[in-house]
């Protein structure tokens, strides 16, 4: 059976160049980067080289990159570290309703600690209104934290404009760039970004490695204590194999970005057009134009996401959904809800995220298999073409009450 992996926003395979390099740092160059001897010095060289590779991808300075265990830690470190270091200046944070839980749950935690958080609403294509951002800014606002690309629906948010506003108002800006880093251009200076989170395993590096970019001069209280690693911002023995792998993956992502983004955009558009054309009552979620290359999210009415994923899996296709069953709660994805998409349609959402290993043949295969599966599930659904439709509340009546 053909196998098609279309869940690159969840994670990616480690690319072979990276796997090869990383293996060497497990077995040969295994030293502790803090050690004085040659083993330690070689490991240190690898770490510092990776720092340069990552810094150069976002036009930062190497000393502004701090390695973490991943995107979640970087988000926690950025948000908690910044507000704790600036709590004498204010207690207000601005974010959006569609952030990853690494940001949202951190903000909820800070609310319990006495901070106040504004969660900006979004439009039906998951974008923010810059005027609403401006209006939300208060005298005591100390941090704006907004994602670059939404992980569920792929919309690219206007970070450059947000950065301009933050700079004018002299407010620190943190950007969760886990989904955009290495995929679309980022320039921390041009975009006025003060802190930025990135993750290795989204760009063909191993899991368990990420980084925080911290602009020189921005105060940050550490979350961890216990050593002088990462200039005391993130103590703990460095994950040297992960770091060198992340560095190489970032460098390669930068080199390939332009060509790969053109290729993935073409495949993405073919997939979107094919689904919307072949499957009646389907809709694209997220922006059509301001969209990450390779990111597709559609809702297929009358069916539920988990059943859809199971049936796709039986045909060798790996995807994800924002349905309640897959979100781990009784409610579907908070992102789709914030976009004003009603529960019923949110439950039938399907995310297909493309990457290096996908070909046009994969797109053709999905376009052949998906309509059949949708038809089969719809034939079982009491919501579709039923003989006894009662006056069920239609989607138009759905409100955002949670």
């Amino acid at each position, binding site marked *: 059976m053909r196998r098609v992996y279309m869940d690159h926003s969840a994670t990616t395979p480690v690319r072979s160049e990276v796997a090869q390099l990383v293996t060497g740092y497990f077995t040969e160059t295994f030293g502790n980067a803090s050690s004085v001897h040659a083993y330690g010095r070689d490991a240190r060289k690898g770490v510092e080289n990776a720092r340069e590779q990552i810094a150069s991808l976002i036009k930062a300075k190497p000393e502004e990159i701090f390695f973490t265990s991943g995107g979640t830690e970087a988000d926690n470190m950025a948000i908690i570290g910044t507000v704790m270091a600036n709590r004498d200046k204010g207690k207000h944070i601005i974010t959006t309703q569609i952030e990853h839980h690494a940001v949202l749950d951190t903000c909820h935690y800070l609310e319990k600690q006495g901070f106040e958080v504004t969660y900006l609403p979004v439009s039906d294509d998951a974008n923010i209104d810059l005027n609403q951002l401006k209006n939300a800014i208060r005298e005591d606002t100390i941090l704006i934290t907004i994602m670059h690309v939404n992980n569920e629906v792929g919309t690219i948010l206007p970070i450059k404009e947000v950065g301009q506003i933050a700079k004018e108002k002299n407010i620190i800006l943190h950007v969760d760039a886990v989904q955009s880093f290495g995929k679309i251009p980022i320039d921390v200076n041009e975009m006025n970004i003060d802190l930025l989170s990135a993750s290795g395993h989204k760009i063909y590096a191993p899991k368990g490695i990420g980084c925080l970019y911290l602009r020189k001069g921005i105060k940050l209280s550490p979350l961890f204590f216990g050593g002088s690693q990462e200039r005391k911002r993130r103590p703990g023995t460095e994950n040297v194999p992960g770091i060198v792998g992340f560095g190489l993956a970032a460098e390669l992502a930068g080199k390939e970005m332009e060509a790969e983004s053109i290729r993935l955009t073409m495949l993405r558009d073919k997939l979107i057009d094919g689904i919307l054309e072949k499957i009646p009552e389907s809709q694209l979620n997220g922006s059509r134009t301001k969209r990450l290359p390779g990111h597709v999210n559609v809702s297929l009415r009358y069916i539920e996401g988990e059943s859809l994923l*199971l049936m796709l899996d039986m045909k060798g296709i790996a995807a994800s959904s924002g349905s309640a069953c897959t979100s781990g709660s*009784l409610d579907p994805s908070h992102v789709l809800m914030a976009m004003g998409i009603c*529960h019923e349609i949110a439950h039938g959402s399907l995310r297909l995220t493309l990457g290096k290993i996908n070909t046009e043949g994969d797109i053709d295969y999905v376009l052949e298999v998906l309509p059949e599966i949708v038809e089969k599930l719809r034939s079982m*659904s009491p919501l579709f073409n039923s003989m006894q439709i009662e006056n069920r509340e239609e989607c138009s009546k759905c409100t955002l009450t949670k």
Partner: protein
Amino acid sequence: MYTDKVMDHFSNPRNVGEIDKASGIGEVGNAKCGDIMRIYLDVEDNKIKDIKFKTFGCGAAIATSSMVTEMVKGKTIDEALEVTNKAVAEALGGLPPAKMHCSNLAADALHKAIEDYKSK
């Protein structure tokens, strides 16, 4: 995460469909929660001569719907009333804990259909 039996009933569901002029129809769940199960009964001489279902929901919702129809087809109304959600889950070799409360409603739909039949 699902047993082979669940996957069997999910991928080859038994008794999918609707019954025209059904003796009783029962529905539980709502689209908001992501699960709707509807059971159609054809009752003759106090026996379930035919039973069909239509379900919008996850793998467990579809599998439990299919299983409950198989368990009661040909049974008397009284026998059918004894089937519980728990018994349906057990017949499937168990369900993941998270699914026990949200997607294990097939017996409730069956009981509602019987109620509907009795009220006619």
